[in-house]
């Protein structure tokens, strides 16, 4: 595990959040949510920090992080791409769109490109089924995406 230094400001902020949660193991998931929001992902060092602050073992924290797909130990890209795999999007060809993103970026779901620009994740329904299949890049939502559109979407961020 590569040792990384955590920025002091964010560490203090996280400690503050943990304190508000009562430094108590029962609030672990909330603490992890806050940590991921702050750091973008949950590297080992952040998990150790959370374990310390919430008075639970690091192994337990890691167990929770690896159990829930929402938590990620890989930093998200500068432009996180999410492809909706909900029923409506799926039946309208989301998988083909996903495959196209994977092919263009040469990374798998849950991974980030080596230059740190893009990461791919899947999600279940953004509540815009009328626009299926839906893709989000950062906060921007793309509707009725076809495999042929993928190249163009990526171009916007290069």
């Amino acid at each position: 595990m590569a040792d990384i230094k955590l920025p002091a400001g964010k560490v203090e902020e996280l400690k503050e959040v943990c304190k508000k949660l009562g430094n108590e193991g029962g609030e672990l998931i909330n603490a992890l949510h806050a940590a991921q929001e702050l750091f973008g992902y949950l590297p080992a060092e952040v998990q150790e920090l959370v374990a310390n602050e919430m008075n639970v073992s690091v192994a337990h924290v890691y167990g929770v992080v690896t159990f829930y797909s929402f938590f990620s130990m890989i930093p998200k890209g500068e432009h996180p791409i999410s492809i909706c795999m909900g029923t409506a999007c799926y039946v309208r060809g989301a998988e083909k769109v996903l495959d196209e993103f994977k092919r263009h970026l040469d990374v798998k779901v849950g991974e980030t490109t080596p230059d740190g620009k893009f990461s791919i994740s899947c999600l279940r329904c953004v509540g815009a089924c009328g626009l299926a299949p839906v893709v989000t890049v950062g906060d921007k939502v793309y509707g009725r995406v076809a495999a042929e559109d993928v190249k163009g979407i990526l171009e916007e961020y290069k």
Partner: protein
Amino acid sequence: MEIVQLSIDNKKVVVEKGTTILEAAKNIGVDIPTLCHMKLHDMNIENKPGGCRVCVVEVEGRRNLAPACKTECTEGMDIQTHSVRVVNARRTVMELILSDHPFECLVCAKSGDCELQTMAQNLGIREVRYQGEKNSYKSDESPAIVREMEKCIMCRRCETACNEVQTVGVLSAVNRGFESVVAPAFEMDLDHSACTFCGQCVAVCPTGALTERDSSAKVMDAIVDPKKTVIVQTAPAVRAALGEEFGMEAGTLVTGKMVSALRKLGFDHVFDTDFAADLTIMEEGTELLGRLGKHLAGDKDVKLPILTSCCPGWVNFFEHQFPDMIDIPSTAKSPQQMFGAIAKTYFADQLKQKREDVVVVSVMPCLAKKYECARDEFKVDGDPDVNLSISTRELAQMIRNANLNFEALEEDDFDQPLGESTGAAVIFGTTGGVIEAAVRTAYEVHTKKPLPKLDFEELRGFEGIRSATIDFDGLPINIGIAHGLGNARKLLEDIRAGKSQFHAIEIMACPGGCIGGGGQPYHHGDVEVLKKRQHAIYEEDKGKVLRKSHENPFVQKLYSEFLGEPCGHKSHELLHTHYYDKKKKIEI
């Protein structure tokens, strides 16, 4: 007390509300098979994730089968524990478990003592009808414990031992679904975690997923090397349990047969760690009196209570979890390491041999001893004071390898000079023993009077935390005892909070002390086995002519010829150590 009445296998039973079907059945002599379930009665700890489903029973009127370990009895229940439906379900469950388990029984370290194997046998599984993917994991490279997680059945007993009994918190279930596995954080090897190597996870594992790192082949290599003089030392708890490996009743003392077996295996000198235990008492007792004297003289800087330091699992625990308190434990090395230090100086000199040509092997009830002897501070120019440490189980395996008929072996005596010991040393093997031994010597050294009685019943027993005040001829000495690291944690937290009234505390990592060590014959959760071993230890003490460490003539000789005085310059160099802050730091 609310009671419920029910019927199990057509037999009426009355139990307290809240009792599980498993317990109710046990009350009337009905044995329901279990695999993941584990109940450590004296510790009030029960592992019942209800995960394996081997204990399912049929409850009249209930659609599905009920896991007996988790289902509470209710009024009027009508239970069948071995109906055709139940037995078929158990067989199916077993086949499903085996469908993701390697078929390596013939070469598995646990074969013959494996609960999974026994269960498969009892259920008469002759084929596994379910074929599919099998999990594979990288093996753990730690110096003491081998993790082969393909063999894990997710019973979670090791997690209970690690988190609840020991409060070490190194193991957790990680990942999800088919990928889930019990592992340390970030799926690193155990020696990159805060693992103490106490081996309690190994002691409770029902399969071969967790075993000790086997060093017996290396021991045999040393024995057959003509250039090496191979010395063996045996810990006190080994003699009270080794017989179990050969079908003898728990609590049978096999000291003489063990010595005989070691000689037949080819060790050049068969010595006793007990000798070094007496030496430990000389050093630790002197240190206790030294600190106490300073404290009574009004020295505010002196640290009390003094904590024993013979248990390497415990040393690892406080180095990782209480690094702010590393100046409180005694600096005395453990008996294993004291023995090594003396064997490779004093005794090697007597043999006129270089230390590199002397190989010291220890037989220990412990897996943490494997880690301890590999610690850098216990090496001189890279040569360890103790070269190899094997467990009671590994010694038993070596005896079987040599095809010795253990029960028929004659009784032999240890060699001298490092084989002589007193009753005080023997009781190191049980919780409360080290501090009782220390009291026997410290009392006489302090008061300069002979002890009125040698058996300190107030220090004995099985309670997780015990305390007693011993009258040192007008000076009351408060003594604390904890066994199991969870109990140790409670005493340490009191010290940290400034609430502790103790002058001295004995701590053993394993429940029961060394008799319940991670390297002992598997007791499969039966605490009665530990009590019998404890009884055997006290019996051996009673039978000894000398029962106080300072009366050991060879220890006296060692001081007069070689060491000088306890806690003197040479003792400090050879018999004392220091501790490290091992808590992981987060870089900011």
